[in-house]
């Protein structure tokens, strides 16, 4: 019985089509897995389902009737709830309050009836196997896993008929994931519809009754349980162009056999309590090393530790054979390590400042003369040079960065780092959220960097990108390095498979 249906959903963001006509049928009492790579359109689809976005085209049907979801409250009223990766909580309030905030059971004057709330939540707690003593504890004292369960309880208390899980296991441990699956199974058996988004292949057979594969904004496969194999899914996720990618790989330069044995940067058994454990990277100069992994695999955190922004708890970093431990990014830059941040808006750019400011922000010292006065003539000249070199389209170097297109902003951010000689340059998602043509441009720039002898690291969640740009790939998963491939081994199946743990028994 199709309780919820999405028909021909189209959604664009500034000229880029995120969803190109997606059909989805969600049945009650079934767990529907939505599979896809980063950027495939999953989160956009979910935002439409929860009323946070309205589709440009297409219809939403609830119980067979068309229903335009005006806003999140409306969606909630229609029984749609979502549990997100990043829990939105009230940290200093109790679990009970987190569950009931905004919909408390209260008397006429507003006197909060905690006993009534406890009673009403009891069956939900039972369903989720949560102890009642949990209700009195402050939310912040719970682990993320338990916080997530509380948010599920919240959804259930709201009588959700459809519960959407957005990559829930990315913050959970193995054991917590198993517990979550059991709970999802029970919820489903209770008649609810579940949509479960993931890119972890091994989870699919455990909980999926139906699987829909989303690639580049389109549904590329829809199966029932038992109708699919891991390889089919892998291929679908990687995209139809995997054959082309394989061809490109053969065109790569051969890495000098002993280059890896004399790396410029070595990360040795690096551990950080919260993010990653026992990570070893060997990064040779003149080579592009790709680091592939899913969100949460710890790649950025390793990079940030190398860059001096995070402090690792164990292991060491060697630059040119010498142990280094930069105390902050300024030191890292001084010794020749550069890092292009993952999130352009929050961590990279200075939106209200001119382009030239953005381009030169990491090397202002080079333009400082006596008394710290800056040589602006030189600065602007350099900015102009960089602008031209990286083909950044702007009226002049004095234009405010936020007026530039996304692609040019990213190029500007890239140019900030690429335009200065580094021994090691780590690029974290260098082409995220920009158009194809600029992507290719930046890829060319990256290859140039390597040709100049820089040890280039490209962290990416885009399989196609990482395969076509890298000379070798390190795969990370759950905070550990799980694979290292080069040359002919660099196939989409191999890389993606290692990243999601395909072929391994669920244990």
């Amino acid at each position, binding site marked *: 019985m199709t309780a919820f249906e999405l028909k021909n959903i189209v959604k664009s963001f500034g000229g880029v089509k995120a969803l190109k006509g997606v059909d989805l049928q969600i049945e009650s009492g079934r767990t529907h897995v939505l599979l896809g790579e980063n950027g495939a359109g999953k989160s956009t689809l979910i935002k439409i389902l929860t009323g946070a976005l309205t589709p440009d085209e297409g219809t939403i049907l609830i119980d067979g009737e068309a229903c335009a979801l005006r806003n999140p409250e409306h969606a909630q009223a229609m029984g749609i709830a979502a549990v997100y990766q990043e829990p939105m909580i009230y940290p200093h309030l109790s679990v009970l309050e987190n569950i009931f905030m905004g919909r408390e059971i209260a008397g006429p004057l*507003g006197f909060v009836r905690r006993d009534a709330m406890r009673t009403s939540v009891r069956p939900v707690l039972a369903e989720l196997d949560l102890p009642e003593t949990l209700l009195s504890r402050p939310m912040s004292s719970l682990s993320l896993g338990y916080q997530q369960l509380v948010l599920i309880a919240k959804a259930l208390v709201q009588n959700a008929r459809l519960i959407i899980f957005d990559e829930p296991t990315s913050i959970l441990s193995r054991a917590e994931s198993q517990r979550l699956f059991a709970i999802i199974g029970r919820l489903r058996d209770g008649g609810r519809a579940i949509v479960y988004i993931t890119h972890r292949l091994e989870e699919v057979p455990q909980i999926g009754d139906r699987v829909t594969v989303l690639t580049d904004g389109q549904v590329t496969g829809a199966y029932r349980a038992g109708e699919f194999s891991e390889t089919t899914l892998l291929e679908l996720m990687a995209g139809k162009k995997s054959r082309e990618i394989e061809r490109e790989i053969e065109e790569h330069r051969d890495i000098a056999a002993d280059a890896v044995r004399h790396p410029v940067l070595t990360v040795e058994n690096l551990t950080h309590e919260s993010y990653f454990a026992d990570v070893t990277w060997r990064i040779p100069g003149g080579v592009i090393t790709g680091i592939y992994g899913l969100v949460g695999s710890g790649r950025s955190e390793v990079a940030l530790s190398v860059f001096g922004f995070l402090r690792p708890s164990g292991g060491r970093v060697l630059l040119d054979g010498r142990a280094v431990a930069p105390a902050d990014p300024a030191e890292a830059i001084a010794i020749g390590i550069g890092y292009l941040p993952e999130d352009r808006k929050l961590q990279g750019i200075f939106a209200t400042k001119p382009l030239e400011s953005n381009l030169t922000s990491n090397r202002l010292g080079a333009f400082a003369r006596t008394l710290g006065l800056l040589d602006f003539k030189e600065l602007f000249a350099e900015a102009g040079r960089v602008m031209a070199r990286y083909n950044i389209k702007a009226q002049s170097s004095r234009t405010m960065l936020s007026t530039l297109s996304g692609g040019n902003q990213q190029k500007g951010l890239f140019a900030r780092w690429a335009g200065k000689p580094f021994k090691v340059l780590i690029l974290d998602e260098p082409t995220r959220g920009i158009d194809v043509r600029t992507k290719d441009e930046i890829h060319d720039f990256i290859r140039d960097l390597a040709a100049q002898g820089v040890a280039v690291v490209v962290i990416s969640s885009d399989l196609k990108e990482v395969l076509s740009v890298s000379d070798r790939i390190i795969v990370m998963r759950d905070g550990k390095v799980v694979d290292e491939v080069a040359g002919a081994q660099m196939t989409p199946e191999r890389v993606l498979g290692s990243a999601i743990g395909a072929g391994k028994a669920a244990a």
Partner: protein
Amino acid sequence: MSLKAGARPDKLAKPPASAHGWVRAAARFAKGREGVLLITLCLLVIVISIGSHGAFWAPVNLNNLMVSAAVTAIPAIGMTLVILTGGIDVSIGSMLGLVAAIGGKFFEAGWSIPAVAPLFCLIGAAFGLVNAAIIIGGRVPPVVATLGTLSIFRMCVFLVLGASWITMIPPELTVIFISDRLWFLPVASVMALVLMAVFAFFLRSFRLGRHIYAIGNNEEAARLAGVPVARIKLYAYTLLGMFTGIAALLTLGQSPLVQTSTGTGFELAVIAAVVLGGTELSGGRGTILGTLLGTLIVGLVNDGVVLMHIQPFWGGVLLGGIILLSIGVNQRWPGRGGEATE
């Protein structure tokens, strides 16, 4: 995204070990912020008793202390609410002066206490409303807005008073609130205690009170959950204004005089009391009990300075030092979110 506030290690949370409810509650109290404050309070009392050679315990002194504490405590309730929602109001000193000035004018004109007393509340509330309008409606950051109204209100005090003082305050005021006692405490103090109890109860057990905490914890989530954020903030500032009005009335009972400088610096004592009590400036955390203890400590310090013949000017230094120390302590013993822990 990698840079979110510390990913937590994947550990299963363990439910607390079972024990008798009251034992647990007592332990939590002692370990928590309130426990530390209580201890500090006791220490201060001891120090001052000794340092003043017992003068501390003179009934006159205790009375004064109770009254001063009440005058600070009542607006401190409102300030707690405001800070819990993530705001602040540094203008209440001038507000107090202005309400006292306007109210005083009515007294001068011969109005009786029962007629004027409610006016104090209303006028104070109106000024609180002004602050709220600028902050919420005008989207001016609370510090900036109330820094501005601080001066504007003070200017208005001058406008109302001219260069003269108001001295025609009915002495009954003093009798009613200060001299008269209810269960051994001056009426003013009883008022303060009652109000504190009421609001402590309100914050703990009423939906609106819980919403105040929610706003301070996560304003965005609260908004999405349907909590009327703007309206609640409006209430908080207005209430603070009303309480300031009450404090103005009590101040006139304490010393029946209104001059242009009446109330100067008052806001600092109130904020000090609230911050000391464990309410965090970023909102979402703090209790009325903490504020009460903070108020008592502030009152004790001021009183002690006088009693022990310490140069009165040290009062300010001590207050500033206490605030800084308390922030540091805050980080070690955070105030509670007032969550219902049973």
